[in-house]
């Protein structure tokens, strides 16, 4: 486990892969795996009060994330949300594969949600379902988020032709009223809360953060949520997750399988987003560049940047950033909806 901790620290510093989480996780892995480690009970306590008992840390982090997100590109063109929905396909496909491979339903669902490309949602679902593989799921979720620029381009290129990748999409910036920006987080919270009550904490905290940002009278709180609050929680979240990275819990064959399934989920999320765009192109006059569908995974803003970069590689005047950002933030919402629906269905079946 010291070696794994060292690898995580190396990836964080040298490769700059999600350093704010992988570094504390790596150091924590070393810390708690020292013989008779006196830190273990402290980190275990942090895990219990901050994650295990009430999922407090991922939820509070969501306030910060909500405050960081500008939903304007999505509100300008709400149809972009379709791609966010389609890009959750990998989650449900992976659920089937993990179940087929023999994982219990609660574990299969927790593994599948790695495809949400959303650390807090992955933690929330895994803890709610009392998965046996929480640590591996968290490590996989954050590692793959960092690997989006490596994982997505080959899949996108495999699913699209050069001609499709060169489709230009002029961006027409329509005005969005302040009232819409204020009502949006409230409306989304109510709708998702009614449909998937289990996800209402996640979506509610995310949208609360966004409401603070958009209301226009709480700039100081918004700034604190985006920076200080998010940073504080991130520091503790990484090292707290490490409490589950003991050799007994982490060093097993299932961990490798989970890493593989997480990658599978990311691949099929990307595939789902691209394919729905291609499908829509069969029926629409103004063609959509199918690559923007790939930004529907909620790894924000890496996925949107990847799509924009690929567009520019094919045609140096093909700017897709505003469209892909809109799809990317819709993926943030859709991944939470997916998490909530998955929780509801699975808990109904297992009687949780």
């Amino acid at each position: 486990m010291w070696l794994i901790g060292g690898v995580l620290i190396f990836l964080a510093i040298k490769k700059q892969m999600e350093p704010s989480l992988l570094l504390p996780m790596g150091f924590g892995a070393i810390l708690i795996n020292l013989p008779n480690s006196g830190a273990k009970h402290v980190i275990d306590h942090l895990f219990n009060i901050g994650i295990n008992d009430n999922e407090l840390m991922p939820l509070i982090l969501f306030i910060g994330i909500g405050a960081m997100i500008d939903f304007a590109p999505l509100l300008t063109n709400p149809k972009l949300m379709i791609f966010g929905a389609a890009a959750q396909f990998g989650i449900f496909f992976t659920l089937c594969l993990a179940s087929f491979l023999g994982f219990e339903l609660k574990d299969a669902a927790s593994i599948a949600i790695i495809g949400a490309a959303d650390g807090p949602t992955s933690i929330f679902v895994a803890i709610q379902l009392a998965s046996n593989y929480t640590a591996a799921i968290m490590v996989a979720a954050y590692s793959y988020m960092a690997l989006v620029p490596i994982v997505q381009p080959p899949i996108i290129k495999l699913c699209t032709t050069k001609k499709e990748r060169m489709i230009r999409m002029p961006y027409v910036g329509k005005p969005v009223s302040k009232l819409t920006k204020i009502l949006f987080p409230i409306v989304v919270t109510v709708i998702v809360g009614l449909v998937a009550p289990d996800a209402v904490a996640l979506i509610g905290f995310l949208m609360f953060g966004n409401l603070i940002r958009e209301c226009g009278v709480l700039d100081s709180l918004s700034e604190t949520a985006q920076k200080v609050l998010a940073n504080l929680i991130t520091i503790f979240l990484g090292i707290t997750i490490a409490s589950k990275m003991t050799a007994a819990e982490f060093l097993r064959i299932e961990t490798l399988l989970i890493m593989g399934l997480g990658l599978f989920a990311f691949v099929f999320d990307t595939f789902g987003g691209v394919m729905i765009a291609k499908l829509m192109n069969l029926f629409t006059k103004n063609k959509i560049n199918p690559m923007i569908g790939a930004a529907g995974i909620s790894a924000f803003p890496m996925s949107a940047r990847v799509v924009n970069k690929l567009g520019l590689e094919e045609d140096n005047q093909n700017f897709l950033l505003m469209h892909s950002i809109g799809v990317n933030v819709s993926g943030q919402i859709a991944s939470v909806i997916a998490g909530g629906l998955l929780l509801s269905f699975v808990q109904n079946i297992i009687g949780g």
Partner: protein
Amino acid sequence: MDLSISVDNLLQALPIMGMGMLGIFIVTGVIILIVTLLNKLTSGSDKSDKE
């Protein structure tokens, strides 16, 4: 845990996939409708705050 290929587990998960994807698209559709409506209703409300 003993991992092994399980068709029974797969059959249990398949309906969840169907309902999950359907659910996401329905919820998304409702949000799209409401946002479109909001955009229409509030388009002239506060020009000073427009981007």
